[in-house]
């Protein structure tokens, strides 16, 4: 099988749309709530998950034939946890600023269900290269949804994007305007509601295509 065959293409693009980990498989919701009140952490988290999922997939795929079936979940967990710990240690030593920004998110990656889901469902049955593509695809699929939710929440919740003011302060109620930031948007509950709207839109578009 060639490296960029049609099947491999489908493995990569599937999770971006019709098999999206959040919108279709509804995995990784917990971290989607935690990091989407602003756009920047959402992007950072999306990229971190992409990298970790890809490499954990490759490692599990390489050792998949040796893993005893009964303790495979434990083995997956150990691989993911070790990988995350090593990455976080390296970040702390060489790019301290980034590690301060990531702070709790690095730890959150270990508990991300997408990782375990992909390891269990894909990497255990497929070769390293396919698993790598699958990991990158799923990570990016996750990142896309996070960015959409983060975009809406930061824009409506605090009137900024990536920290830059988008909604001018002159239209705000406190300065005599008519607009008020929607404080609800910064609450975790709003992430669920926006997520539900994203899933709704995603399904109705895909259903029409069928």
């Amino acid at each position, binding site marked *: 099988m060639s490296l960029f065959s049609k099947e491999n293409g489908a493995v990569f693009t599937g999770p971006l749309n019709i098999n999206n980990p959040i919108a279709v498989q509804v995995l990784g919701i917990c971290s989607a709530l935690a*990091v989407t*009140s*602003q756009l920047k*952490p959402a992007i950072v988290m999306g990229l971190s998950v992409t990298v970790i999922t890809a490499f954990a997939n490759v490692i599990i795929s390489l050792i998949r*034939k*040796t*893993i*005893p*079936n*009964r*303790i495979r979940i*434990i*083995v997956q967990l*150990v691989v993911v946890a*070790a990988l995350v*710990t*090593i990455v976080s*240690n*390296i970040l*702390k*030593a*060489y790019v*301290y600023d980034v590690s*301060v920004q990531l*702070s*709790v998110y690095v730890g959150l990656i270990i508990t991300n269900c997408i990782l375990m889901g992909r390891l269990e469902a894909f990497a255990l049955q497929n070769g390293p290269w396919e698993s790598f593509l699958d990991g990158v695809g799923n990570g990016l699929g996750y990142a896309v949804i996070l960015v959409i939710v983060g975009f809406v*929440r*930061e824009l409506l*919740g*605090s009137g900024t994007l990536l920290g830059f003011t988008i909604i001018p302060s002159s239209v705000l109620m*406190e300065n005599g305007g008519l607009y008020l930031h929607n*404080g609800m948007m*910064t609450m975790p509950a709003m992430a669920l509601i926006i997520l539900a709207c994203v899933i709704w839109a995603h399904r109705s578009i895909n259903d029409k295509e069928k």
Partner: protein
Amino acid sequence: MAKKFKCKVCGQTFEADSMPEKCPICGAPKSEIEEVTEPSPKKKKKGFDTNGNAYTIIYASIMVILVAFLLAFVASSLKPTQDANVVNDVKNQILTSLNIESKDIEGDFNKIVKDMLIKDGELVEYDGKFQTSYSQELKDGNLHLFVATLEDGSTKYVVPMVGRGLWGGLWGYVALNDDFKTVYGTYFSHESETAGLGALIAERKFQTSFIGKKLFADDENTVALTVVKSGQAKDDINKVDGITGATLTSKGVAEMVTTGLQMYVDAYKVKASSSEVDENIPAVEDYQNIENIQKED
């Protein structure tokens, strides 16, 4: 049950119930025929039975040992660099509280800031290793105070403080003018406050709103500087606007700033007469009690 046999002469395999007298294909004698035992070569190819108990236990043990060594190796080999980064970051925080944006943190820090201790009401030089947490000295009843001499020759005092926010710890540095009454600059940070809400205390916008505020209202012994609900501070010289939607984090900052400064004011009065020294020692103990209480809950 049919067994498999292989003829060494013609190389063909065939099935039979028992050892035949001669090969049914080429007619070679019985001595040239051998039985092929099917499962054993297949088993050898696969290596181990990956579902066996012994294999599982050995696999798990080896995996754990390998990962443990790997992590221990990574952690210990990167520790010095990480510690250096932490020290550097703390120094940068102190410089930030002095409103200095530094490129050469180490150099600027050594040039501007002196690490001092308040010991029994007296300011003494601290000659130990640079600390990133101040609990050890606090236990001995001594307080760290950073004394900065700026380029224009003025002296500023940087007070380190720790507190508790909504989700985790808070810490900060408040730089005071040499009269010990006016805020020159601040730096705050947090472990895990909500992004977009409580986390805004780490932004310069909030930190600079402290500049120029006074520590005391009428009574020069009680710190009145505090953080109030957003929009309520107006032009009050003792009050700073909190963060909208992050009431508990703002409260945490208020408490940290007020108790933190109070402790220093009690322990060390720059302009006050030195006769009050004796009264000061219990105040430090008071603070330790507060800390213990906080730890308990």
